[in-house]
């Protein structure tokens, strides 16, 4: 187990800048998510840490030891591939044992450790099956067992859950977290799925166009995204443009919106974000507290999803979304003019 650290890492593919001066630290035993859309450089960063590619500049260290020029076979990392990459010509046992036989461990030791690893991923008894005789979920467990049985210093997962259907995915999320805690290994995974990142990670790094946009605990990034991109990529957000006036933000078209965030000097234009679940839909005539921000809008549609309700509203041309818990009250009908209110603490200034 070890800390992993990347400092000023850049990587070019031809003229495409896959990674641009990225620095990030992964603490010992942590579960890290690298989140970003395709082409953001998250997979490149993972492959650089794994040692499949070398950075053009910058340094990567595992356990304090510089490894940026060490090829993957000497780096002692466990990698689980999106395609699982199980060896089709070998049984489950031989797949898991592969890294141990390469290390020339005695047969009895190999049998013991493969048995333990298969038990950890709850696959004991399937060791003589071939990969094509397993279900998707079982294949993933074999891939995981194969990656951890060598007791690597760091575990890397490429889109670990994307190939599973939704029901399996939820179960596997819990399993992955349990296994990671049990062996206490530093784990870094790549995903484009914000829900996966939020539920699995202790910390998240958000990447965009080869740069690290924001890094922190999932809750911190969700509550205080530092850019419109982070706000919309991790969770849902309504964005408003405006200009600073009187210690608040004057939106185009009138209303003054207050925030607890620090603001630049008066006159500067800013973008603020409000999470859809932090807004309250109030009909004309309902009252709201004086601390509440308030804007007018018109209901376009109310989408019912069982335990919750999503209102699609319009303020002028601008679409706004609001999530409401299903409290049993009748939804507001389309076409009704309403007021949307929220607390200043929930106005996030995402660009200054």
């Amino acid at each position: 187990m070890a800390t992993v650290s990347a400092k000023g890492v850049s990587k070019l593919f031809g003229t495409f800048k896959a990674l641009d001066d990225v620095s990030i630290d992964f603490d010992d035993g942590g579960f890290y998510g690298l989140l970003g859309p395709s082409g953001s450089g998250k997979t490149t960063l993972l492959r650089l840490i794994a040692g499949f590619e070398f950075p053009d500049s910058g340094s990567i260290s595992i356990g304090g030891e510089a490894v940026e020029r060490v090829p993957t076979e000497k780096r002692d990392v466990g990698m689980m591939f999106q395609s699982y990459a199980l060896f089709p010509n070998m049984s489950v046992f031989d797949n898991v044992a592969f890294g141990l036989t390469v290390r020339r461990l005695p047969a009895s030791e190999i049998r013991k450790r493969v048995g333990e690893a298969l038990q950890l991923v709850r696959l004991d008894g399937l060791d003589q099956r071939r990969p094509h005789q397993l279900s998707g979920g079982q294949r993933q467990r074999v891939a995981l067992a194969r990656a951890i049985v060598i007791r690597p210093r760091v575990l890397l997962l490429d889109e670990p859950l994307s190939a599973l259907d939704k029901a399996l995915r939820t179960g596997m999320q819990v399993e992955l977290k349990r296994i990671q805690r049990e062996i206490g290994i530093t784990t870094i995974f790549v995903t484009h799925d914000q829900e996966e990142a939020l539920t699995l990670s202790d910390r998240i790094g958000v990447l965009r166009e080869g740069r690290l946009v924001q890094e922190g605990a999932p809750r911190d990034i969700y509550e205080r995204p530092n850019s419109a991109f982070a706000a919309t990529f991790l969770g849902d957000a309504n964005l408003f443009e405006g200009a600073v006036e009187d210690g608040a933000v004057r939106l185009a078209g009138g209303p003054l919106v207050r925030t607890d965030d620090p603001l630049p000097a008066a006159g500067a234009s800013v973008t603020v974000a409000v999470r859809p679940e932090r807004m309250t839909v109030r009909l004309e005539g309902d009252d709201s507290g004086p601390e509440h921000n308030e804007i007018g809008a018109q209901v376009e549609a109310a989408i019912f999803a069982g335990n919750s309700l999503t209102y699609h509203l319009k303020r002028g041309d601008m679409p706004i979304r609001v999530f409401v818990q299903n409290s049993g009250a009748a939804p507001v009908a389309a076409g009704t003019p309403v007021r949307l209110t929220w607390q200043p603490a929930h106005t996030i200034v995402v660009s200054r």
Partner: protein
Amino acid sequence: MAHEATHDTTGNTAQADRSARAVVLLTGPAYLWLTVTVLLPLVAMLYFSFLSEAPIAGRVGELTLEQYRAFFEHAFYLELILRSLRLGAEVTLFCFLLGFPCAYVLAKTIKGRWREALFLLVIIPFWSNALVRVFSWTMVLRGNGLLERAIETVFPGAGSLDLLFTYNAVVIGLVHSYLPYMILTCYISLQAIDDDLIAAARSLGASWLTILRRLILPLAMPGIVAGAVLIFVPVIGSFMEPRILGGRQGTFIGTIIEDQFTAVFNWPLGAALSFILLACVLVIFIPFTFAARRMSG
């Protein structure tokens, strides 16, 4: 419930009938063609091999085992078969040693337009007449030919190789003729190997040699076996390359069989030798194919 079940069964039978008819209609012509072009000639040959003389020009042969007895009575037939099998094994081995790395580079290292260009170079020999190809080798291999002059230029005083009309000349010519088969069959099975498999093996600490031995070779085995069959079978029966490049060293079972048909007109002996050769091939390849299938999972 019971009524429904009977209804279902009759429905299934009707459907099974229909699909059986479709199978017959669709595959029938192909099997008919194979029967006419492969099975009938083979059966005719098998019949000839049991005759005392060829039923041509009004002569009538009697049924006999004499031709097969001739094979066992003259040791040189067996020697020639062994010589041909050795030739087949050597040509196949050299084709593998040259073709497999070439196929690997084509499948895994080179991408895009360069791959197409190199593929063309592999396939071009197929477009030229085999006889022309073999005769060009005589220019290259003969004493004071292209090869010797090239070597003389680089290493003056290297002496004469005098390759033409030797066993080695036959091997060189046959390897050149059959190399594309090995490259193409290996290429197909190599490019089907997911790059992630190799990356995964590397991340588990495997050296290139281990990856080659435990992953790439087993997974490419169907292609290697297919290539080996495509090369070995025609090479052991080959007669043109041995005649042109081998000279007096070019006597193999293939040239003997050809002589029986074109020079001596002893068709029954030629047919019998052919079937003995076929039996040898089957004995070699059947266990080999099963082993390969087990290896690649």
